[in-house]
Structure formats: structure tokens, C-alpha cells
């Protein structure tokens, strides 16, 4: 049975990584946390942390980057993001017709050749899967396999980096993401990975409309 709660919650978590906070989002976060939140600063934090590699505050939300991230003596080293770093996800996304270019995301995150393993995309994908589990219970298995393969460990590490930032807004985002990852674990519990190819269908040919 689908859980409207988890669908919406994962979608909201994805939105925190893909859209700058508008007045409403800031207001919700403020009332839920009791923290004072400046909407302008929150927007700037969003862009500096999630969008602009040269901001000096950038924490790349990409799996392939975070898997190679290392804490050095005085700073964190992130390997350069690669535009094709998340191409392994293509067939997963295609399985359910998930198209990242259609997500309602900030333009800086949606141009061509962005890596596909953005944490926001991964959460949005699982949100879409969760929405459809009502009609197709096999999708639970797909979601579990996906979560185990792509959302193990590194997102927690990412969240921990957010929580260290000098930003109330980012602390709140980190908390929300942690909660979302908990929901993922509850809703898509880990299980043995099956043969991936069995779930892919066949190679597509010319696309007929």
C-alpha cells in the first residue's frame, strides 16, 4: 500500500536540495523549529552550498563526488564532479520514466549534462517510486534495491557536513534530510540485490511517439 506521507516527505526533502527556499518554506521551517530564519540569508545559503562551486561554501550533493570525498588536515577535499558521474542511474530512471529535466528545480541545477546522482534527484526518484507502489508492489523491491545501492552511508556523511555549516537554514535542511533518510530506510528496507538486468526491460530502439 502506498504511503502518501512518505511520497510527500521525500519530495519535500528533494525540494530542499533543488529549490531555493521561498517565503513559505522559510516560514514553515521557522515555525517548526522555533529558530529565527532570515529568508534572504537562507536563499543565499542555498545557492552557496548547493549550486555555486566557486562560492567557497559549496558541498557537492553528488554521490560520485561524495564517495571520493576525503577529510584532509584542514579542509575537505571533493573530487571534481563529472557530468557523466551518475550515468549508471539512467536505466533506473528509465525504468519508471523518471526524467530529471522535468523536475521543478532551480535552473542552475537543471541544465544539460548535470550529473544524475544529485541527492535531490535520488530522493525525488524514490518519492516517485513510493507513489506508485500502490499499483505495483514489485516497486518496493526496486526502491529497496535502489536505496541500498545509491543511498547507503554517503548521504549521512553529506548531512553531517551540512550540519557543521555556520547556517541555521542548513542545520534545518540537515535535520530534514536525516529524517527523510530514516523514512527511506523504513519504507524501503534493505534486501538482497536481485539481478538488475531482469528489471530493465530490453534496449530501446527508435522512440515512437
Amino acid at each position, binding site marked *: 500500500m502506498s504511503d502518501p506521507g512518505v511520497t*510527500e516527505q521525500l519530495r519535500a526533502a528533494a525540494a530542499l536540495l533543488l529549490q531555493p527556499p521561498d517565503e513559505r518554506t522559510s516560514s514553515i521551517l521557522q515555525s517548526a523549529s522555533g529558530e529565527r530564519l532570515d529568508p534572504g540569508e537562507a536563499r543565499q545559503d542555498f545557492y552557496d552550498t548547493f549550486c555555486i562551486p566557486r562560492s567557497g561554501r559549496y558541498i557537492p550533493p553528488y554521490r560520485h563526488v561524495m564517495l571520493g570525498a576525503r577529510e584532509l588536515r584542514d579542509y575537505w577535499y571533493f573530487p571534481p564532479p563529472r557530468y557523466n558521474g551518475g550515468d549508471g542511474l539512467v536505466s533506473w530512471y528509465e525504468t519508471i520514466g523518471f526524467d530529471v529535466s522535468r523536475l521543478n528545480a532551480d535552473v542552475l541545477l537543471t541544465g544539460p549534462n548535470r550529473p544524475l546522482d544529485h541527492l535531490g534527484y535520488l530522493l525525488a526518484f524514490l518519492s*516517485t517510486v513510493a507513489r506508485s507502489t500502490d499499483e505495483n508492489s514489485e516497486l518496493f523491491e526496486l526502491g529497496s534495491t535502489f536505496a541500498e545501492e545509491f543511498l547507503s552511508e554517503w548521504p549521512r556523511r553529506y548531512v553531517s557536513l551540512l550540519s557543521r555549516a555556520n547556517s541555521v537554514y542548513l542545520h534545518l535542511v540537515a535535520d530534514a534530510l536525516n529524517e527523510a533518510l530514516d523514512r527511506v530506510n523504513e519504507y524501503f528496507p534493505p534486501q538482497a540485490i536481485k539481478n538488475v538486468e531482469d528489471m530493465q526491460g530490453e534496449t530501446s530502439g527508435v522512440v515512437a511517439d
Partner: protein
Amino acid sequence: MAKEPFAPITRRGFLGALAIGGVGVGLGGFGGTIVDVVSYRNRGRKALHPIYGNSDTPEWLRDVTTGELKPNPQWILRHTTDQQCHSNCGLRVKIDRKTGRVQRIIGNPYHPNTLIDYTSMSVPFIRTAAHPGTVCARGNAGIESAYDPYRVLSPLKRKGPRGSGKWQPISWEQLIREVVDGGKIFADTGDPASESFEVTGFGGLYAKRNELMNPAAPELGHRTNGFVLQCGRTVGARKEFVVRFGQAFGSVNVDDHVNVCELSHHVATDQVFPGKHMTQPDVTDAKFIIYWGTQPGDANFPMQTHGKYAAHARAKPDGLKYVVVDPHLSRGGVIGDRASWVAIKPSTDGALALGMIRWIIENRRYDAAYLSHPTRKAAEAAGELSHTDATHLIIVDEKHPKYGRFLTSEAAGLGGFKGDSAADRVVIDPAGRPARAGAADTARMEYAGEVNGIRVKTAFARIRESAEMHSLDEYSSICGVSKERMIELAREFTSYGRQAVSTMYRGVVKHPNGYYNGVAVLLLNLLVGNMNWTGGLTAGGGSWSYKKGLYDNVDVPEAKGVAYGVMITRQGVRYEDTSEYQALVKAGKNPYPAKRPWWPFSFAMYTEVLPSGLQKYPYGIDILMWNMATPFYSVPGQGNPEIIKMMKDPRNVPLIIASDIVVGDTSMYADYIVPDGSFLERWNVDGTLPTVLTKGTYMRWPVVELTHKTPDGRHMCLEAFLIDVAKRLDMPGFGDKAIRDKNGKWWPLNRKEDWYLKACANVALAAGHPDDEVPEVTAEEIEIMDLKPFHDRFKDSLPPEQWPKVLGFIARGGRFEPHSKAREGGKLTHRFGKTLHFYAEDVGITRNSMTGELYLGTTRWVTPATALGTPLDKLDPPEKWPLTIITFKGALQSHSRLVSNYTIREIMPDNGIEVSAEDAEHLGILDGDYVWVVTPEGRRRGRARVIQGIRPGVITFSVGYGHWGYGATQYSVGGKRIEGDRVRRMGILLNPIMRRDPDVWQMSLMDLTGGSIVFYDTRARLEKETQGV
């Protein structure tokens, strides 16, 4: 800063609040500016050197004491020829001597494409160190074509139905055995539809080489015509090689791709300049050029050379001015005092050219003295460098049995034929009397009357009348160019004497009326008499032939007469000459329209291969082979579900073999894939292109070899496959007795080099001028190019005395006349001598197989229409379909096969739909918005690119994007999944939804005269995407 592994989680519940509050990513679309820059780069590991980074060491080292340059022994340098597009530019390839890997590609300075003042053949290789040639981005990136991780390096056989994307590797022996012997060769595929299917292999078909395809239609040739080899850019000597196989096997159906490119351009040229398929301006010395349907810097013959020449000429004081006539402004059409852009409506170039012709004639701006000479002899006596048929009389009496032909002396009562058909035509001499053309120095251009009781007109009168069929205002209305601009163009074109040229490429001809457009554009040249003059028009410098000389590389005497008949594409044949037509007439039936068109003037009708075979008209296909061919991707309208479904059914085409370097967009539907070499692994020998004014023959050879080896040690490729099939069948022309030299000695053909080295010898040792002699290779060149192992491997392919020059030819990358030989003062050195035609007799007496009407011997404005004459505006009314799709070949993509070149893709990752700012504003589309392109055949989604440089009402896209094969989607080999690369799917390809002709099954819109497929006339509309996920 604290260093905790994970921050403590103190607060929960935000997520629920956010979800309840409606925050989410999938709630709608978004607008605003899309930033298309690629933010991230794979910067890789730390560079090896803080200043020079990871650069290779240089090719040359300078001796610190003498200052002399010496080759760096780390590198092998070899010359070959590019094939990333069809410019055929010379390459210098830098290969790591230790690893054998290609590290860099630059230009070969001996090759004319790469430098204006290219290096003379006599200059030793070592002296060229500081003077390399240039190649374009595509040439530089070619390494990535060869080292594509998706390369197919050993034979594959499908494991599942056709197109299932599942492959199994097989041995070379199994490949050859199965395709030759046939039988139930799909039993191991697991495909229920074909596992018990009995396949006639090459052997079974070859056994029928003396059986007629259809006894009731013997002109269709033998059953072996059921073998069809559909080639893409398989040209020059490589095409000759595969044609040799076809001839020996008994099939005429071995041909390449030209009609998907711009065939009508060649056919129109052939009719105006008999025997020539291309003319070009002498760009560097011209004063004024009109580029129709192309522009310097875009695809052309050759692109970088045209661009280089135009830039050079434009920079000279009082140098070149040019005008680009094209709906799309690309790189060459820069606006300034030396260049301008005329944004014409697609398909209407003929109307503008005819308007100009009308104005030029009415204002007597043509060169009347030049046009008055009826023969070459008379023209040369007057100091002219060419002559036309302007004064020749044409029979215009429709009841006369020779209606549409030139009047001959015999018919005019002036005496019998004297051996020169052009001189034997009839003209009206200055005194008004009929005269044999060969006997007149000058003649009247304007005449309409009777000669010997036959109504006649001059060719010039015919073109004048054609031009006068519409007023300048009407022409202006048709083409969307103001009357004033039309007149200004005509005036300027006729203001530079012989140094003005009207030249064209694909944009003019890829329309249903393409041939007639092309002829009109070309005829402008005849009016100013620019042929063969410096700064005028050229047919090129010619080439040395690789076909014959020391060796006869073409004839296979034992196979004579086996391969003959009508090709499956019905090209080069008049419908009226067929048994089918005659039977219908005999039965009292209307023979028109034919089931599919016949193409009497055309060649290489690539786009008709598959639908003709599926429709079995004139016959079906037993064995289909593809080489460098991807019709589903490249042919407008052909990559559609119906035709792909039919091709997937072995009952329609029992055996499909693709020779390819990857699992391509079309080869993914084959039964077998034979690995082929990339252009760095292939052979070819062919002439340079006519933009170069000097004589030249380039060569391409395997500077590296990457495919796996056959059991006897040859690298797998198309030629190795054909040789082994031929040898298993004991076909003539292959094996131990195959190639005859000029002394009658027979030489073997067991390796491709046995044949190509003889093609090289034919060129390298051909007689010539001392200036263009091929120098013998030096010991130093052998060392730098590492030619010894090559020679040792193939030393038996040539006699020892021929090797020094053949290796010299390979070392230079071809044989090229010095650039100083291009001109003799105001005249071009290499001149075209045949009669230039205002009137194409052959066309004027031939009927259209669909309508039964005669084609036009001259040109006039012809409304673009379907095969049976429905105007396109009526077929797809502009009210419903307000836009017209055109395509372009920019500098970074020329065709289907550069998708593996990531360096290029990083520069331009996505092509997008280019739409005019005016249309975009009207439709509410912003740059970067996703839009749907909707045509009567389907719809495709892509990003809008809003630009100023396109005519409103027109949209365009660069070719080469939107792949589904070639590594773009996943497949499996031997059960191992190979993931597709998203980058290769980027962009949009509209070919599959381009307009098909409703009058002919599975035929795109076509130019029924010239044979070009139509890329420029699909009507469309744009719909902005507004939905989110």
C-alpha cells in the same frame, strides 16, 4: 571546526511540516533563463608538470648546438587522411612508439586542404617540422572515434530477436561459415520467430548467379542481385573494392549514400557541366561569391579549406565580398562590409536565381560576346576559356519525333554527322542563316523560328522564356527576398567580370524542386562566362587514377556478365525501358504512376534501398549488408516504427550483416556485426576535391590497427570479411589469381593490402611532371614513420623496385601537384573543356515515371510538391503547420558518427531547436525552454535555442545528435550488460518525424528529377512544454 563523524540529530518533524505545506520538487514547470554551460569538468588527476600539465613531449627536438630540429624518438609520425567528414583533409598522426597509441592529430602540410601554400612533395619530411598544416576540431578529435570504448572489435551475433540488444561474441570462422553456408543459422539465437528459419547464405545465392531474377523482366539481372550492400561514406578506392566484390559475386547492388546527402546538386551540375558532379569558386582570387544553401565554415567540399580560403580572400585589400543565401545564418555568414546574409524562404532559391537571370537578361548584363561562340574552337580563337550551348537550336515542335532534342545538321539539311555531336548541332549565324555549329565562329543567341520545316529555338531563348514566366515581384513574393535586394544581387554579380561566382551546396537542392533550383543557381555562372578564369569557376585540378596503370585493380574478367541489370533502387534507368512498362502499355493500361519512382539521372539512391526491398519493387533482398550505413538515423522519415518492425522480421530480409565500428543506430537491428576499422585503421585512395585547383590524390591507411585478428593474423574489417567470403566461394577476382599487372602477370588478393598497395602504386608511379613526382622514401622517413615493419609484412604485395616510391607516397599522404601550378596568370591551369549547358537534352526528353510528364530540359520556377503533384502548401497548410524544418551541418558535427567525440560534445553538448526570436516571442518561448516539435509524422522534444540568425517561420537543428544506438542505450554482449551513455542521447534528431510522401509507400519527400531526399520541407509547429513531473 568540530570534527564529528555525524552531527547529533536533535529535531524531527520538519519534513512532515514541509510536506504538509506543499513543498516539493514536482509541482510544476519553471521559467526563466536556462544556464546551459557545463559547470563541471573532469579535471582528472594532478597534472604531471606544473606548467606543461599533462602535455605530451613535442614531436621534434631542437639540437641545442646546431639549432637543427630532429625527430623525437618517442613518437612515430604518420600521414593519413581524415574521414570525420567528407573534406578528406591530410592528417599527421602522432603515435607513441612504445604503446602504439595515437596521442595527437594535426594537419599534414603536404596536403592542399591544410594550408593555402601547402608544402611541396619535394621537401623532405624533416623540413616540415615547423610548418604543420591545420585541421578542424573534428579532425583533432578523431582519436576519440578510434578509441571509442563502445567499439566492436570482434564479430557479434544477435542473441534474441533482431533489435533485442542482446549479442553473443562469435569467432571469425563461425561468422564466415554461417553467412556463407546458411541454413538454420539462427537456431542458437533463442528467437522463436527465426530459430527454425532457413537462411540462404552467400553460397546459396551465389549458386544462382546465372538464374534470372525474373524471366519476364530480364533487365532485372540475375538472382545474385538479391545481395545488397548499402554503404554510407564508403567512397573512392574503398568503394571500388566493395564494388569488385559485387561484380564478382554477381550483384549490381553495391552503392553508397549520395542521395541522402545532396545528390541533386551533383545531378544539376552534371547537366550544366557534363561529366562533372561539382564545381567550386576559385575562392582566394574571386571578387564576389554568392553562397547558396551553404556558407564558408559550414559543411562543404572541403569545409576547412573553403573557410580558410574565404577568410584569406576577405582580408585582402579589395578582396572577396560574398553573400550567403540561406534561411539560416551560420558561421560564414558574418555581417560586415565584406559579407551579407539573404534570409531566403526554404526551397525558393530557384525563384531568386530566376529573378536575377530575368533582370540580367532584360538589362543585358550578361556577357553576350562570350555566349555567342558555339564551340570550344570558336571560343578559344576569341580568347575565351569555355563555351556554352546558348546559340544551339532545340526542336520545340511537340509533334516532331525528336521533340526536345538539339537540332542536328542532318535534320536541318546541312549534311551528315561529322563525329562531334556538339559541333554537329545547328545554330543561326550572324547573317540569319542556319549553320553547322562547328562551322560558325559566332551565332545568334536569340532565335525562334523554323529550320528545314522544323520549329526550333535557341537554348538561350528557352532560359529567357523560363525566366520571364514570372515577374520580379512574383519571384520576390515566392522567395521572400525584396525585389530591390534581388536586383542589387544581380547587379553586383554582374559587376566583377569573370571574378564573380554563384556556388551552392545542400540547402538549395534538398527540396522536391531541388534539381531545378540547382540548375538556376548554376546558370548564373554561364551568363558571366566565369568558367576556368582566375577568380572564377573551376571543376578542380583533377587527380591521378588508382584504378588502372601498373595494375588493373578493377576488372575481373572471369566474372564478366554475371553482375548486370536494374539496381534495386531503379536508378539510372528510364521506366519506359522496362518490361513492366511495356507490358502495361501492351495490355492497354495506363503505365503511370509506377509503383515507386524510377530515377533516370540519379545514382547512389541510398534512401530507396530499404523500402524498395521491403516492397520487392523491382525485387526483394536476400542478403542485406550495411557498411558505414545508418538509414534509420540519417534518412528523413525512415526511422519509423512501421519500417523498423518490418526490418526486424527475417521473412522480409532473411539475412542482415552490418559492418560497423560500434553497435550503431541501425546496425543494432542486424543479425551479425562484422567489426570494421575506424578511419585511422582504413585504406582509401581518391582524388582531392575541386576547391583545390591543383591535381591531387590522397591516401588513407591503417596508421593503427585496433580490431581483433583473424586466425591468419589479419585485423578484422569489411575487406577481410569480403575476401574470406569470396575465397570460401572460390569467387574470381579474389585469392591467388586476382589482380593483373600491365605485363599480364597475376597477383594474389588474400589481404586488403594486396589490393590497396597496387592502387597506391598506380598513383605513385604514374607519369607526371617533375614537380609532382613522388620522391622515394628516405631512411629517415622510414624511421620516423616506422615503415619497416609495414614493408616487411607486405613486401610480397609489390615488386621490390616499386616500394621506394610507394612508401614515398604513403610518407607524403598522397601525391599533390605544387600550389604554384594552380594558375597561369589570369587563367586556371586545369580547365574544363566540354560545352556548358543552358539546356540539358537528356533531361528534356525523359518522362517522370510517376506523372508521365516530360522533365524540363532547362529550368523554371517549380512549386515543391509530392510525387504526384500535390503542392506542399496544400498537403500541410501553413495555417496548421506554420514552420518549416531545415537542417544544418555546422563545424562541430557533420553527420551521424561523431557522437563518440567527447571533446566536441563538451563544446556543444546539445544541439537544440533553433528558432527565430520573432517566432519565439510570438509563441512565448524562451531560450532554453523545452519545446515539442510536432510534424504530420510525429513529435520530438528538445530545448529551444532562440536566435536572430534564422528566418522567421523556419526552425533548424544541427545534425549528429539524439542517438539511440552508438553507445547511447544499453545492450548486452555475452550476457554482460553494457550501459548506454547519456551524453550520446543528448539533443534532438528530427529525421524520424520528417515528412513522408503520401503518394509512395515509405518514401520521404523526394526530388524526383535529381534524386535528393528532402531534408528542408517538413512543415511543423512548436508547442511549449508546460508540464512538470
